[in-house]
């Protein structure tokens, strides 16, 4: 209770002698134009007005002698002017070209770029909006250094993986994402309309530690647009319409090439030749059949403004995108409404409300793996037509797990509907000039309704995806008891899930300058977080008519309901936190900050429930020193930070052993459910911790050239792992899991550089160049005891493991054989110093890594590191220019030093192939790159660098040309401004990679990055749009 006294003691305020008066004046920009809507506030009060259409203002002050007026307007540097008895003050605001005075939202408070001690990167709402992307994270790629965004799928509504400063953990690498203080997960970002975003701030270093146990992967703070006090309504309507097409097609064999090569494959092994006649023309181009043009549309309406006591910002939007594969079978649609309100309840109390409602619909096709639509498309046989003469889809019978991709699209019927209400209610008490006390309740409610219809289908003999018994679509018959058979017809699966996050937060901010030189800021607060979720699901069989029209559980005709099934789950998790931040600045030159957060997480057992996360940071504004005499350098700041943050992203109750394994057997021909231990317990389980050091330098040269650079070392310890454990523990049965343990260390080191140049804004041609680059080195420092490596993604079908987590290498590095050309002749094989069992002329020649004279296929002795999915360097380049009424912008992203595993080829004799196989080995001297093709047993399918490709690429993500109509024209329809534009996303990608898209995410977690299973590529989108402002 002591601090309450402390709090009260600062509340004494008195102001007895004052001289009231009125001040008028005009606000102009440095270009000479007046600024309407600029804010004029008497400092230290809530007394404020906005300038009128001509930039004039009138404000009353209580004391003309001492009052200080604060002038601000978006995009301009805020100025404070002492009134000093004057009654008319005109002012020219300078554009905030330096950006260093820009307000930046940090955890539980704000700062300016000038006084920040941490490493952060900002992206403005305008830049996000301009990129015309469906999701805000897509807009971040290439905009800031140290942040890698990889789209996990180009399909509409597909999520991205967001990695701040590399992969640092085995499990969940997503950063903590906060929108107006409310926690979002990366999947949940679909709910946000990019046009609603005012600013994005990425906390990259240890100063993110104010968020404690969840901050180890960095924090992204997103603020949505808010109105300003005393400002006229600003209405905006914008829209764009675009056409998407695939940016890339693979070079596959046509029917004739296919026939020739397949004949060779079989003939060389002495088998019968499948094609008597190879002159069968081009055949079917399955990619032509599967890829289509698809529409993307967005409509966005917003209004913001405010009066004396309240501000508002409201918006509504509609977005819909069809897929370039499957069209409306792969669609994402979003309707969204948003309201941000700020209310001055009295001169001390402010109520802020944010509410966002979203309705999302998503339909999806199988992607990214064996059995996905694109996998089938790549491997389908060009000699077969899409449909046979009788009008049925062709069966592609020669390979049992490849089905007709068009039939697959037609039979795919699913939909997920998400209804989401996210927001906060926040009461801010401005206790006095120094103390602000904020209390808020954040909420995030989502309900997800999913339905999938599985009709009776027949893809051909022996296909695993068949649900019918035969081509007549007769249902399979199931024996439910001795000689009692029932039909198993079309089925529908439905699930309904609800997720609710509630987060109460309360914190006190203190801000005061003592004796002009000592600035002190403090934040102390508490946070209570609870997440609950539940699901109820069911599946029902024998949907009448095999028709999606009756695809509902209620319509099922399953006899006696015998086959029908239900399921459910429920979970709850909680966090309990206290935090403190103290900041001190001396003469605006020396800045220091201390953060301590204590978190309790229900993820951990009583032994290790609470953790404390400290951070220190400091900055030195060298340019403020008197000795600093470089005139060209107008601003120079050296920053350093070191701190600890945590990660608790594991399943609930991992610290105890539960009977959630699978114990299922068959008695009396009926499947019976028993119990078994699932995951073994680990009562000592605790969060993993990241220690991060950052050293940074910020420079401004002249007025318009900003340089920011960072060097960081990020070491993550006690990685939350589920490593393999000894079989004798007994957890390797069905449904069993290793205990989650803290073991393993990972290090990320890197350098970040951001350069920004803004041309003189008073000239007719204005332009800006923003360049950023990141160098990153990732290394596993330790694996759990007794574990040499953790196996990752598999290669091929039934094949070995291609990626690993192993000490001394990058996370998920590729491990396989190094190749050394092709054996050209039997003589070469016979004379080789290294014995490669079974080798024949035309086979890949492997390198004997351990020098024992034998290629060992049965162990690891001749396998080595052959690549990694983590780029060494990434680059972003953003250009923008304005000339008269025209504007232009371009965003380029590039990554180099990473590799991709070509894993979308079905290694089956009849599967279609990329046309590089035309250059295969067919005799001595014909090829030293591509091995012979044969059905004969061979070792060419071993995972080797033959399947690893250079993944480097450069991509023009967005290029845009806009034209703003002359004011005369726009005024005619009472608009302040009308802008029209055309824009192209993914115009050009420069890469050597043969697959659809070198920019592939990691669907199967950290160890599956860079494994291409037939990735759904990002579309090339050509669009036009307009923007009306009123």
């Amino acid at each position, binding site marked *: 209770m002591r601090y309450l006294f402390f709090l009260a003691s600062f509340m004494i305020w008195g102001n007895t002698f004052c001289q009231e008066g009125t001040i008028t004046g005009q606000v102009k920009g440095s270009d000479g134009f007046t600024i309407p809507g600029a804010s004029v506030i008497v400092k230290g009060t809530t007394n404020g007005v906005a300038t009128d259409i001509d930039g004039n203002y009138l404000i009353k002050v209580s004391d003309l002698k001492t009052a200080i007026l604060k002038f601000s307007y978006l995009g301009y540097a805020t100025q404070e002017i002492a009134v000093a008895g004057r009654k008319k003050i005109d002012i020219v605001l300078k554009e905030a070209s330096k950006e260093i005075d820009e307000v930046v939202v940090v955890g539980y408070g704000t700062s300016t770029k000038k006084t920040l001690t941490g490493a952060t990167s900002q992206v403005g709402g305008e830049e996000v909006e301009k990129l015309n992307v469906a999701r805000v994270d897509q807009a971040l790629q290439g905009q800031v250094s140290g942040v890698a965004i990889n789209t996990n799928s180009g399909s509409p509504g597909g999520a991205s993986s967001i990695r701040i400063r590399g992969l640092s953990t085995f499990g969940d690498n997503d950063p903590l994402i906060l929108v107006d203080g409310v926690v979002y997960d990366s999947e949940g970002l679909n709910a946000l309309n990019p046009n609603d975003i005012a600013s994005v701030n990425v906390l990259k270093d240890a100063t993110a530690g104010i968020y404690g146990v969840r901050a180890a992967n960095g924090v992204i703070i997103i603020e949505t647009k808010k109105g300003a006090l005393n400002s006229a309504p600003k209405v905006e309507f914008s829209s764009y319409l675009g056409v998407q097409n695939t940016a890339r097609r693979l070079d596959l064999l046509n029917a004739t090439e296919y026939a020739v090569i397949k004949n060779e494959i079989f003939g060389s092994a002495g088998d019968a030749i499948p094609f008597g006649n190879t002159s069968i023309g081009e055949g079917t181009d399955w990619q032509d059949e599967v890829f289509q043009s698809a529409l993307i549309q967005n409509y966005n309406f917003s209004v913001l403004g405010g009066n004396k006591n309240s501000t508002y910002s409201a918006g509504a939007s509609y977005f819909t995108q069809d897929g370039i594969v499957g069209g409306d079978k792969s669609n994402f649609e979003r309707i969204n409404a948003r309201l941000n309100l700020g209310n001055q309840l009295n001169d001390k109390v402010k109520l802020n409300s944010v509410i966002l409602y979203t309705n999302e619909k998503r339909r999806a096709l199988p992607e990214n793996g064996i059995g996905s639509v694109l996998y089938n498309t790549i491997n389908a046989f060009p000699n077969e037509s899409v449909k046979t003469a009788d009008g049925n889809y062709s069966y592609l019978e020669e390979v049992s797990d490849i089905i007709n991709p068009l039939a697959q699209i037609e039979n795919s019927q699913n939909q997920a509907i998400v209804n989401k209400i996210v927001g906060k209610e926040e009461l801010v008490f401005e206790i006095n000039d120094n103390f602000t006390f904020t209390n808020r309740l954040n909420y995030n409610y989502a309900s997800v309704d999913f339905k999938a219809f599985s009709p009776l289908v027949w893809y051909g003999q022996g296909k695993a995806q068949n649900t019918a018994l035969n081509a007549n679509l007769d249902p399979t018959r199931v024996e439910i008891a001795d000689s009692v058979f029932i039909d198993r017809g079309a089925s529908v699966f439905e699930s309904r899930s609800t997720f609710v996050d509630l987060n109460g937060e309360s914190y006190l901010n203190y801000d005061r300058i003592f004796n002009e030189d000592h600035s002190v800021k403090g934040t102390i607060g508490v946070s209570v977080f609870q997440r609950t979720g539940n699901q109820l699901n069911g599946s029902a069989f024998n949907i009448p008519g095999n028709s999606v029209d009756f695809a509902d559980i209620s319509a099922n005709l399953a006899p006696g309901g015998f086959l029908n099934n239900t399921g459910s789950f429920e979970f709850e998790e909680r966090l309990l936190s206290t935090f403190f931040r103290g900041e001190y600045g001396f003469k605006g030159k020396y800045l220091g900050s201390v953060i301590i957060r204590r978190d309790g997480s229900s993820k951990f057992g009583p032994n290790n429930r609470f953790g404390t996360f400290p951070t220190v940071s400091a900055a030195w504004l060298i340019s403020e020193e008197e000795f600093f005499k470089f005139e060209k350098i107008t601003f120079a700041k050296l920053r350093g930070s070191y701190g600890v943050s945590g990660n608790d992203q594991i399943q609930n109750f991992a610290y105890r*052993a539960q009977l959630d394994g699978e114990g299922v057997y068959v008695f009396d021909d009926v499947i019976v459910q028993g119990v078994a231990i699932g995951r073994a317990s680990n009562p000592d389980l605790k969060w993993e911790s990241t220690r991060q050091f950052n050293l940074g330098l910020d420079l401004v040269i002249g007025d318009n050239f900003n340089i920011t650079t960072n060097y960081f070392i990020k070491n993550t310890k006690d990685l939350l792992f589920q490593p393999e454990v000894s079989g004798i523990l007994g957890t390797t049965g069905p449904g069993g899991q290793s205990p989650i343990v803290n073991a393993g260390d990972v290090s990320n080191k890197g350098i970040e550089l951001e350069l920004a140049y803004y041309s003189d804004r008073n000239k007719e041609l204005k332009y800006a160049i923003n360049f950023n680059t990141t160098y990153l080195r990732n290394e596993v420092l330790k694996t759990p005891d007794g574990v040499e490596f953790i196996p990752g993604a598999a290669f091929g079908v039934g094949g070995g493991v291609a990626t690993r987590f192993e000490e001394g290498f990058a996370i998920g590095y590729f491990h396989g054989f190094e190749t050394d050309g092709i054996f050209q002749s039997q003589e070469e094989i016979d004379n080789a110093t290294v014995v490669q069992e079974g080798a024949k002329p035309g086979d890949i020649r492997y390198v004997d890594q351990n020098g024992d004279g034998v290629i060992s296929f049965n162990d690891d002795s001749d396998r080595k590191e052959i690549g990694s999915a983590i780029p060494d360097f990434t680059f972003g380049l953003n250009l923008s220019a304005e000339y008269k009424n025209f504007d232009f912008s371009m965003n380029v992203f590039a990554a180099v030093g990473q590799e991709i595993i070509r894993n979308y080829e079905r290694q089956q*004799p009849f599967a279609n192939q990329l046309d590089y196989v035309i250059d295969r080995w067919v005799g001595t001297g014909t090829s030293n790159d591509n091995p012979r093709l044969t059905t004969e*047993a061979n070792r060419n399918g071993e995972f080797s660098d033959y399947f690893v490709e250079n993944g480097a690429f450069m991509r023009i993500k967005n290029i845009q040309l806009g034209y703003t109509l002359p004011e005369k024209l726009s005024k005619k329809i009472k608009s302040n401004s009308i802008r029209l534009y055309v824009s192209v996303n993914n115009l050009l990608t420069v890469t050597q990679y043969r697959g659809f898209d070198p920019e592939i995410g990691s669907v199967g977690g950290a160890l599956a990055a860079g494994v291409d299973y037939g990735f759904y590529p990002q579309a090339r989108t050509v669009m036009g749009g307009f923007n009306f402002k009123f």
Partner: protein
Amino acid sequence: MRKFNYKNIGIVLVAMLFSLTACEKFLDLEPPFSQDADNYFTEPSHYELALIGAYDLLQGSFINLWIGEIASDNAIAGGESVTDSQGLHEIEAMTHGAVNRELRSVFQWNYAGVSRANFILENRNNINFDGKDQILAEATFLRGYYYFQLVKYFGEVPLIIDKRLGADEVTEIKRSSTADVYAQIEADLSFAASNLNPVNPVKGRVNKWAALALLGKVQLYQNKFSQSAVNLDQVINSMQYQLIGDYRNLFLVGNEGHSEAVFDVQYSGLEGGSYDCLICLEGNAAVGFQGIRQYTGPIYSDGNSYNLPTQDLYNSFESADDIRRNATILDIDSFISQQPNPANISYAIGGGGHTGLYNNKYIKKQGELGLPDNDLTSPVNNIVIRYADVLLMAAEAHNRSNNDGQALIYLNQVRSRVSLSAVSAAGQALTDAIWAERRYELSGEGHRFFDLVRTGQAASRISGFQVGKHELFAIPQIEIALAGGNWSQNQGY
């Protein structure tokens, strides 16, 4: 509004939140609708449910059908390519080492089974109820079975009895001697045999005779012939079992539970599954995997061409009159040529090898399919101990304990079922005849490799087999490491 007392509201809010954070109980959540492993076994149904969990691991027995054949002279690995289940290809070539996914599965699954049986047995004294003895006896039988698999494959293995191992104990436990492991298995099976009911009305649950048959087999593996003979005789004399009339009907779903199934692992076709977790399946993976690759035609259905019989096995049969040859081995081309429309029948050759022959006992057939993906969901049970095997084991036990008369009776029972003439040998000649008969009778059922090793014939029959090494498989290298690196590797690896 002037009286608006924000201070008080603020104080109350702060006080509330701070008091909440002081209350650590806020974080004490209990898992909803779920039970912890440590406070289980409080009512009879818990024992029953945990026993089902212990039975579950029997379903890993399909891998014995592969390894027991592929390691021997009976079959090659087959499959899509030489990297498809590479471990099996290495076993075929006798180049297998300590890194082998299939062998590791054997180690992991059987220890999971041991651990689930132990979970029941460590809690055997929690409560008392009618029928507990039967449950404990079944659990003990299962533990004996799992340890027998382990000792057959790996020799000396750590013994963990009646407890669950803590993570910290893993690095301390040692490999027990083969003798100790066998002693434990015999103790478990003897306990099971004396406590199990002679008849268990539930299909799939073990009875007294299954325990005695397994005990007799375990003793045969240790060359304890007279003890083995005593136990196997009890099974035979119980009159519970008899050879069925037509050998060709032994492995049909429609005939399951026939009078020859002493101990069979139950599978069901009523649950789907994925290739990611074969031990999670309720179906018999061996059947689909051993099916004919991309087959279209009558009777059979398509599969993955695993575990293909060798010509050597085909040729080994005394005569084409032995119906067991064609019941054991499907000669695909000959089969197709005998069908009405051979031109309409097709199949493909896998890149992992081809002999033209398929395992005709465990093979995917039309009318015996499970739910999709039916490569994984075959309902065909795996008969682990068949009455004919009991007779042949008993014959061998008697023969090798100098009772050729009884041995001949048993051997000739097996032969007469398939209309073969009676044998009248004695001594070693009789032993050889029994061993040969085992191959004719039991090929394709996963016994061959272990029989060859047990009888010392492996080196002469299996190319690449090294005496002193290949009698046992290597302990998976990673298991040695995960157990703290203190175990020695098996000889030769």
